[in-house]
């Protein structure tokens, strides 16, 4: 099909659809700033230990409870550990949990959504399952799950690895439902389109149909729910750590640092402030990126 040429408008050279998305994304100032902050935090967390090579677990009782200084930009805690180094180490864990749990939840959600949308026979069953999961009280169940499975998993994967696996799977398994619903809706609409009919008429098997024709076209809602999923996962992990049901005490995460800081709230409020700020800033920037992406990937808005 050829584009009807509009007089007066020079024909544009063909270009990738993602450039249009980027152009629209740039318009959203909040999203741009959010993306910048998110990348900055990711960069700091990834390469921070190279730039700031103090061991976050090294105790030094003589220099405990220090304020801000050049040697310790965020001060030291009650055991003389450098808080800046602990923030970087905590960020690695929080970000790691956030990204992995998001990936798991998006994979489950997309799988369920595509299968439910594409195969009519499975639709009813899978959507009822999604409804059942949506009716579960997630926070209490997460608390119970973490409490029950902490010991066996710690024994199997080591204290840190076990909790990591537990956190990621618990958060992933309890947050895929929205993605599944949105993806299913989009797949149902896509199935009626001509290109799908054309592909089917030349005998494309369902497996290739999904990977070649359906999946690339539902990428936009998946990307949006992936960004929002990061925010959700980081908040859930910090909340569990804050309730004392997260990683072990000597293993810093942002939520854990905040939880530890609460004990010294009256003397050293900044110890609560830094990890809290890190969590809030990350979640805020991710939410803004999600907002911008949603606008940028919406073709109804993009043309304007």
């Amino acid at each position, binding site marked *: 099909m050829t584009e009807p040429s509009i007089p007066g408008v020079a024909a544009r050279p063909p270009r990738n659809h993602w450039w249009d998305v980027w152009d629209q994304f740039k318009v959203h100032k*909040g999203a741009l700033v959010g993306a910048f902050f998110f990348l900055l935090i990711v960069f700091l967390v990834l390469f921070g230990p190279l730039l700031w090579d103090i061991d976050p677990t090294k105790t030094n009782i003589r220099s405990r409870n220090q304020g801000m200084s050049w040697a310790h930009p965020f001060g030291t805690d009650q055991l003389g550990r450098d808080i800046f180094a602990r923030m970087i180490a905590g960020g690695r864990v929080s970000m790691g949990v956030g990204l992995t749990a998001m990936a798991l939840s998006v994979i489950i959600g997309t799988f369920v959504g595509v299968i439910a949308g594409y195969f009519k026979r499975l639709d009813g069953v899978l959507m009822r399952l999604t409804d059942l999961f949506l009716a579960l*009280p997630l926070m*209490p169940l997460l608390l*119970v799950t973490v409490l029950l499975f902490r010991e066996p998993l710690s024994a199997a994967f080591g204290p840190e690895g076990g909790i990591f696996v537990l956190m990621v799977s618990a958060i992933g398994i309890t947050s895929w439902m929205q993605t599944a619903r949105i993806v299913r809706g989009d797949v149902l609409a896509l199935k009626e389109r001509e290109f799908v009919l054309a592909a089917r008429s030349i005998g494309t098997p369902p497996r290739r149909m999904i990977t070649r024709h359906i999946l690339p076209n539902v990428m936009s809602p998946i990307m949006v729910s992936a960004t929002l999923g990061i925010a959700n996962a980081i908040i859930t992990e910090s909340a569990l750590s*804050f*309730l004392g049901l997260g990683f072990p005490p000597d293993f810093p995460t942002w939520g854990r640092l905040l939880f530890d800081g609460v004990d010294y709230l009256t003397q050293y*409020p900044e110890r609560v402030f830094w990890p809290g700020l890190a969590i*809030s800033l990350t979640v*805020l920037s991710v*939410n803004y990126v999600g907002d911008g992406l949603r606008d940028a990937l919406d073709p109804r808005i993009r043309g304007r």
Partner: protein
Amino acid sequence: MLTFTIRRLIFAVPTLLFTALIIFLLLELAPGDPMSNVPLTVPDDVKQQMRLALGLGEPMHIRFFKWIVQFFWIEPLNLFDQMFGTTFAEGKLRVISWQSRSPVIDIIAERIPQTLWVVGTAYVVAIAIAIPVGIYSAYRQYSFFDQAGTFITMVGYSVPPFFSGVLVIVVFAVNLGWFPSIYDTTHKVVDWDSFVVQLKQMIMPVMVLALQITSQISRFMRASMLDNLEQDYVRTARAKGMGERTVVMVHVLRNSMIPVVTVIALGIPAIFGGAIITEQVFKVNGIGQLLITAIQANDLPMVQTLTFIFAVLIVLFNLFADVLYGILDPRIRYD
């Protein structure tokens, strides 16, 4: 409409049973043992007797069935007895807490007023703020008020309650000393002075909860208003010469409220879940705090009952929201 409601009610039953099963199975796998506090000098056969007395030691499906019966038949009977002074439930085994050896429902009934008081006030305050903000933001889209409002709601949406709660404690309780940082639930309101004290201790938890809820609802309200302001019927109403006030506050608002009302209904059970953290921060001894202490003390009947109550709330309000949606918007009805 009636068939629709009945169909939804019928579907709620398997949902509840499934949730009950998941909660039950999850706790069955608990490695904790209520007998672990019993001294080692107690002989093994006595321990077995004690396990049986606690209702353990029987096959899993029988215990599940017994638990369901206890929850859905014996506990309501007890409630009925208390209300009318009858003795239908006498001698029947109730759900007993392993911590305090008293009926779980009685403990929960003691804790509910605190939670409802704080969370309920926060919800009402949040709705009262969110709806006008949402309306005005949408009406003056991209104005300064809208930009500022959108930013604040975004912040309120992103800052977790365990940080905002601690932050307001630092500012208002530690530095300024205006409000107490710990919520005193034994405080009784008898005169004006004690009312002021109650108000003071409620401000901070309500503020933290309300910030979160306001952000969610006002985002919804704004989006819903924006959708409706573009509609043709708005142009028609204006073309008929109606006042701007009537157009926005009557025509647009009434239609925009439909999704918002359901969101408000759906949010009520989530608030109980979200209040776990806020209650922990401000030491409000409500349901959320009860759940945390029960989990830490390995008190299985308490955890089961509380989690299941949360599940019942979610299912009930889902049902309520669905029916409400059908009543408010005739296009939604499926019959």
